[in-house]
């Protein structure tokens, strides 16, 4: 360290959480930078020596190793100069995240569905996207990709059941390939119930680096009661067929088990069955999502949902179980912004060409519509509620020790609870945060996720 650095008074960040994860290791989680790091006791000693403002000269007394550690901790904003405005740093980072390029697009090609799931959160007035709208959305996408100069773009198809509109999906992808700059790689996402994912459809999507998410709620008897066709017939066989086609042709398949009080105890049997039937391996990831009842349409299911304050433990338990049985299973701990909805560059179109950041609210409530591709300007005044939202706008968040990680929670849930979009709702991560971080670290080490090896292990 230079002599002027050695003389500056440093202090431990006020917003750094330290979590004991056992085996003589601690995790450091920074609310300011969103980092999660693993440290040994010797590093902790150096960090703790700066509980009160002190210069490295005073703290290290010429020990070069201590100085080295001090420098590393400073680099990560875990140690800061006494006068540093930490909240200012947080705000700057949040602003960067909102505006950093790399646009991704979601097309809700239809809100119609061939299923009648008991906990569905979408309204039941089907609407499909017509070509005139899709074409305009493609134009908007091309404009944004050219503006940023990005070399990759992700296009996700959502519904309803998007595969009811497979011809439109095909047309959107072929047209996008034609109009996007030649050097732009297109990857795709498909959020489907799986029942219509035929071999032909899967073969087509194979050309577009497709990751699919397909829900499977249990073995036949359990799944069919929850996720039946509109006719009332069970969908288990068709969904398994879709999953097999996804494994054969797509880059990756996320089997999403929607968990509530009625199917949680049946999950071990489902995992055994999947394993016995070879629905496993490097392309398959099992994810356990909580069933939530946060729209009018799904309210009647509320008493069967596992509440947020209890779901964290369930998530850890199920993730570990799946791993023990040989599946790839992990979850994310976000930071800064609770989800994609708060980022302008994650653009979602509904069938009308409205821009609707939250995929749980596709435009029925006007507060959730932030623009329309046919308007000039495209975005309206609602956009600020999403793209300027910060957890620090809310007093409860300002007092919360994990404000930087939960980002104020889910806007859709807050709207459901309080009838107002500019409010908060504490999410799963608020509860059992320490245990969730511990599991997150173990998963990252197990799968090499910290080295960015996600696609390698699961696709």
């Amino acid at each position, binding site marked *: 360290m230079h002599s002027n650095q050695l003389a500056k008074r440093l202090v431990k960040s006020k917003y750094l959480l330290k979590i004991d994860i056992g085996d003589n290791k601690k995790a*450091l989680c*920074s609310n*300011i*930078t*969103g*980092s*999660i*790091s*693993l*440290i*040994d*006791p*010797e*590093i902790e000693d*150096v960090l703790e020596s700066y509980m009160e403002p002190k210069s490295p000269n005073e703290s290290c007394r010429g*020990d070069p*190793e*201590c100085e*080295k*550690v001090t420098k*590393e*901790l400073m680099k*990560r*904003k875990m140690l800061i100069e006494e006068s540093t405005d930490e909240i200012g*740093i947080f705000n*700057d*980072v949040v602003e*960067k*995240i909102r505006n*950093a*390029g*790399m646009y991704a697009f*979601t097309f809700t090609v239809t809100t119609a569905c061939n299923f009648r799931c008991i906990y569905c959160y979408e309204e039941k007035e089907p609407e499909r996207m017509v070509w005139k709208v899709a074409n305009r959305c493609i134009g908007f996408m091309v404009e944004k990709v050219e503006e940023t100069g990005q070399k990759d773009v992700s296009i*996700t198809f959502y519904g309803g059941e998007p595969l009811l509109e497979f011809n439109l999906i095909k047309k959107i992808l072929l047209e996008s390939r034609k109009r996007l700059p030649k050097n732009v790689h297109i990857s795709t*996402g498909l*959020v489907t119930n799986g029942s219509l994912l035929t071999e032909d459809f899967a073969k087509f999507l194979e050309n577009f680096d497709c990751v699919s*998410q397909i829900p499977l709620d249990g073995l036949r008897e359990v799944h069919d009661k929850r996720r039946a066709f509109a006719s009332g017939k069970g969908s288990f066989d068709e969904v398994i067929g879709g999953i097999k086609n996804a494994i054969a042709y797509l880059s990756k398949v*996320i089997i999403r088990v929607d968990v509530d009080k009625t199917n949680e105890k049946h999950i071990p049997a489902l995992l055994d069955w999947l394993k016995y039937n070879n629905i496993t391996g490097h392309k398959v990831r099992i994810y356990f*999502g909580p069933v939530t009842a946060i729209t009018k349409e799904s309210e009647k299911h509320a008493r069967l949902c596992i509440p947020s304050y209890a779901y964290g433990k369930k998530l850890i338990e199920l993730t570990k179980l799946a791993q023990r049985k040989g599946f790839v299973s992990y*979850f*994310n701990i*976000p*930071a*800064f*912004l*609770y*989800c*994609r909805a708060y*980022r302008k560059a*994650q653009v979602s179109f509904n069938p009308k060409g409205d821009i609707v950041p939250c*995929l749980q609210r596709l435009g029925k409530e006007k507060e959730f519509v932030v623009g329309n591709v046919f308007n000039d300007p495209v975005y309206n005044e609602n956009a600020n509620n999403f793209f300027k939202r910060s957890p620090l706008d809310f007093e409860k968040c300002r007092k919360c020790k994990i404000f930087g990680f939960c980002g104020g929670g*889910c806007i859709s849930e807050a709207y459901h609870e309080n009838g107002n979009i500019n409010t908060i709702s504490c*999410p*799963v991560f608020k509860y059992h945060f320490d245990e969730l971080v511990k599991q*997150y670290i173990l998963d*990252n*080490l197990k799968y090499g*996720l*910290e080295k*960015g090896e996600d696609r390698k292990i699961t696709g």
Partner: protein
Amino acid sequence: MLPEQAQAIRDIRPGILPGDRIENIAKAIRKIILGECDFYLP
């Protein structure tokens, strides 16, 4: 003096700093906000 092995701070995920390059921010957004998946629904 600290033992050599103990010097490492293992970044399970690096954070984002205001001065980071845009490519690094984009990469971190994928991991931190999107959970490596563009349609990730918590």
